[in-house]
């Protein structure tokens, strides 16, 4: 039995180390973003908000933040409005080839991002959508749609179709039943999907660097080029903002899923 206990402690020890390895590196950016110096060295010479001030007032960072929000919202709206009905059709429909369609829609999830980005670049350029935020919205929606589809399909699995039949037998038109019965019940799943879709777009950098010129530059794109040229604490500050924003959205998703499940 003593070996058993020892093995248990060893497993917990390894787990603690692995989790520390997973989580702790993220926190290094926090002191870096709050440094009063210009270098990314520890210990920091002093504390200050100056780099957050740079990111939140410098016109280029502000423009990038604005672009990220617009593109994120646009692609989320597009992905959700396409993927929600598609999820209903795929879960309730019994037509042949559903697996094939599902595979087709899921392609962007497994495609290496560089291939997707370079291909979109060539294609969007020929149709005149390169260097526009609309182009980036379309590309990000394609990336986010399968994610939304998955979450909505999951919430539909637990939906009782008898409710729709009951609504119909009470005289509700299919549209009314969809709006008044189905939508409210799967709303948490749709919202969760929407938020994840937003994060997908908000974090994406490779497609963004191919489809944008300086005017449509997004926040991750700014960070990426900054890291390649010279790392300044402003990048750490922008990264902290990115993490906080995603974490807040993720907390909402978790809360929604708990209520749903």
């Amino acid at each position, binding site marked *: 039995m003593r070996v058993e206990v020892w093995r248990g402690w060893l497993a917990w020890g390894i787990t603690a180390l692995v989790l520390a390895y997973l989580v702790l590196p*993220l926190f290094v950016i926090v002191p870096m973003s709050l440094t009063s110096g210009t270098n990314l060295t520890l210990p920091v010479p002093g504390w200050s908000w100056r780099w957050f001030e740079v990111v939140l007032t410098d016109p280029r960072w502000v423009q990038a933040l604005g672009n990220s929000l617009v593109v994120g919202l646009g692609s989320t709206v597009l992905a959700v409005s396409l*993927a929600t009905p598609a999820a209903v*059709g*795929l879960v309730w429909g019994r*037509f042949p080839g559903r697996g094939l369609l599902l595979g087709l829609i899921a392609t962007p999830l497994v495609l290496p991002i*560089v291939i*997707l980005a370079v291909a979109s670049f060539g294609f969007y350029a020929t149709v005149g959508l390169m260097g526009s935020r609309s182009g980036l919205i379309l590309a990000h929606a394609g990336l986010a749609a399968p994610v939304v589809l998955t979450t909505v399909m999951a919430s539909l699995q637990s939906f009782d179709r008898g409710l729709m039949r009951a609504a119909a037998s009470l005289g509700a038109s299919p549209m009314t039943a969809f709006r008044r019965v189905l939508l409210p019940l799967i709303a948490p799943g749709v919202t969760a999907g929407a938020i994840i879709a937003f994060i997908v777009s908000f974090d994406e950098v490779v497609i963004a660097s191919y489809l944008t010129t300086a005017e449509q530059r997004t926040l991750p794109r700014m960070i990426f080029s900054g890291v390649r040229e010279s790392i300044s604490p402003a990048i750490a500050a922008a990264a902290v903002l990115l993490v906080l924003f*995603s974490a807040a959205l993720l907390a909402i998703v978790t809360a929604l899923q708990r209520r749903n499940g």
Partner: protein
Amino acid sequence: MPSVAPASPLTAARGQLPYLAMVAPLVVFVVLTVILPVALFLFRAVDNRELQANLAATSAALSGWTAEQGLPPEPAFAALVRDLAAAQAAGHAGTLAARLNQAVPGSRTFILKTARLAAEGALTGPDVRSAVLAAAKGWQNPALWSVIAQERGRFTAFYLLTSLDLQRHPDGSIGAVPAEQALFLSILWRTIAISLSVTAICALLALPVAHVIVAAPRWAAAGLLALVLLPLWTSLLVRTVAWIILLQGEGPINSTLQGLGLITEPLRLVYTRGSLVVTMVQVLLPLMILPIVSVLRRIPPTYMRAARSLGAPWWTAWRRVQLPMLLPGLLTGSGIVFVFALGYYITPTLIGGPGDQMLSSFIVFYTDKTLNWGLAAALSVQLLAVLALAAGAVAAVRALASRRVA
């Protein structure tokens, strides 16, 4: 909708139409914004439009000519001058010269010069061949003429061959490129090797963590899972930046080690294979832990206890009882991690050294720097082929394993 008689197939099909209509917009959207662009891009790997469209007369005049005959005859030169003049007038001379330069490096400048002279009408007269050779002696190279003679169709194997370190010789045979130019297979192996080692390390680290999470009381398991999920939802870019900060010469790890007096000079930690693997494992590990946890949860703990009570040592019990049952989760996780790792670009670019760049970086290099989109597409085909093979292998092993368990 209670119906006594079974619905006819036609009615059943019609009943499915609304569902199909709900799926259709998304399918059309994904086809238009993802599948079509990728297909058009991959087509560039075999597309021979530049040569076929711009050198049609020349390649026709070269029919029957082979490299052993020496320089091609006068009509071929006359056709070349006509073709180049037309290409110059249409503004295609630049792309045409770039395409030929890919096959015969160093030929770009004199081809452009010949095109310019051809368009000005300076290369006429009874002996066009001498005029062309006098203007640009690069046309004495039979390798260039072989390319024009061989690559006359709508499609070309040139880029795919290049991506496999192969070339077509003037006599039409296919062979390896000289050793000093043989780059792409080694990049492919490097990409596979990095992905495999990342996958293996992820598997090793994920197994104990998954066991602990499943065995933990409910509240603790939820907390541990949240810790696993947290990095998953942090931007890949941010996580890579964090590692650069940690590992750099003046970063916390080096300054701590120096502060403790363990080292005097900062260690070279960043921009190495090690830093790349450490970062990739951290980024991809959650994707290995989650599927293993979900499989492990479905295995009743009594199985292990039964095996132990029959006298099997822990290791034997785990290997014989638990491992076969969690294999599907391990395989799913490995498949996901391996496939994701194959396509990595941001992390190797930012945290790897020049010897750690993976296939994706080369796709970017040829797209951005040299505008060789054909080769970029061929390398993409290669990457997708490996990806498909890996996915197929995982599926096959899973099928095999489930048959054995059943």
